[in-house]
């Protein structure tokens, strides 16, 4: 990869890269992400956004009626997350094999050394997020964090999955695999042109984001 350019990188792109090897249409989905095509809104995504929105609303003092379909888990989480900072946007440079990436992430909640990420998934199973690049990415963004908690809701119950910095494989390893994969599949040029920090933010500006 050419240097000294800097490239935008998110846990979401790394997650889509990992799914190439585990999901049937993973490669196509990864290409769509790599080409920065907007993802079609699925029911699961809409539920996730609505659920997180409801938790944030309650934390910001809004009222939701007991008849709300997710009243019990939303109130449970709101109580658990009281006093945390919501939507903390962070970035940090990382150099892997001489290439400079700017990692970017938005933490759902942060409080007292613990990063919290809410998920909505109708089918949770233990260690669901074990292979996720999200907690290694966020531990890189917040090296002083002592714990990462996934708080996954199935609409009725909250499932807590906890990771600690000393238990994870650092995000550098995933980034290395990602770089090798791009090279082998002749996708490096696509990535470096579309995710170059300068062009990335210029196009975001044009999109009005």
């Amino acid at each position, binding site marked *: 990869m050419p240097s000294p350019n800097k490239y935008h990188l998110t846990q979401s792109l790394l997650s889509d890269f990992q799914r190439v090897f585990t999901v049937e249409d993973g490669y196509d989905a990864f290409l769509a992400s790599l080409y920065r095509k907007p993802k079609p809104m699925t029911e699961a995504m809409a539920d996730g956004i609505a659920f997180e929105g409801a938790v944030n609303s309650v934390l910001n003092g809004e009222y939701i009626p007991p008849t709300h379909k997710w009243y019990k888990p939303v109130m449970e989480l709101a109580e658990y997350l009281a006093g945390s*900072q919501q*939507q*903390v*946007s*962070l970035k940090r440079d990382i150099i892997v094999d001489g290439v400079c990436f700017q990692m970017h992430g938005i933490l759902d909640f*942060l*409080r*007292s*050394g*613990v*990063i919290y990420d809410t998920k909505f998934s109708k089918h*949770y*199973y*233990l*260690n669901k997020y*074990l292979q996720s690049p999200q907690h290694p990415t966020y531990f890189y963004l*917040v090296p*002083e*964090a*002592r714990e990462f908690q996934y708080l996954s809701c199935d609409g*009725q*119950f909250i*499932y*807590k999955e*906890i990771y600690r910095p000393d*238990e994870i494989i650092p995000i550098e390893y995933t980034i290395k695999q990602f770089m090798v994969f791009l090279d082998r599949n002749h996708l490096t040029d696509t990535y470096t042109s579309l995710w170059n920090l300068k062009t990335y933010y210029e196009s975001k500006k044009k999109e009005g984001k």
Partner: protein
Amino acid sequence: MAIVKPSAMDFSGKNVIMIISGLPGTGKTTLALSAPDVLLIDCDEGLARVAPAHRKDASICKTFDEIKADVAAAKGQYKTIVVDTGGALVDMMKQFVVDHPKEYQGGTKKTGGISLQGFGYVKQLFLDFSAELRKNFNVVYIFHESMSKQNDGVFYELICEGAARTLVYQPADLAAHLMIVNGRRVLGFTPTEEYTAKSAYGIKGLIDVPELKDGDPNDFLTKLFATVRENLKKEAADLAPQQKAYDDLMKDVPGMMEAITSAESANQFAKVLDTLPHALTSKKEIGAIYKARCKELGLKWDAKQKAWVAGDAKSE
């Protein structure tokens, strides 16, 4: 609710909830009985398979009502409740929901048997029962496992009603897969591609379970639970000074934000932010609060000047 400062937290009485799972014949029940002062809730007639020297007091239960009654009577007399098996307990809870239709409305299908809503009740019963048990006892849930083929290998899964299989892990601090490797009995606390597990409080990876010879005390879990408490105590002691520094700083943040009333004071605060006595994630948290405060005041960030400017100011 009584608020306890981390420095004053005492984990010497912390009760542990643990899942032990494994194939038949691996010695799950004998291992579970190595916990301190055990009462075995035997839903599976597992005690008969334990060597007489290692048997403990047992309650043979056929219904969830019987279990609740025996657990209530055990308060103050035992330190650990072993449920053999967790899968059988969940089955009894299913029957309990079906038998109490007034209490669990919609829990039974018109055609008989438990409904989807009924499974929701069972899950809540399991969580509530575990929480109630933890108040007075350590809890060890024993689960049988089944083995299925997955890709090129095998996967071991708890034998438990599907809807509850995931939830039973939720209240557990530790979950270990008991296996026999080259003749050694080993507990796996870290999940692998072959089995699910849960590690915590410094208990992780593979831990050998020593073979019990005649006259050996059966005390493996008694020692393990003591280690959990020691690790918790050490962790709390390590965290206490950082937590205190964090709490002391964060309580001053509202005052700091009130003092920001203009672009000038906002830019002054930017210089102060780095010099505060930060602890844990206070710097990033205060940074987020500070940004929100600037936006609340209608200020905008001028990337060229690298400073906050009034909302109506033109960028240079």
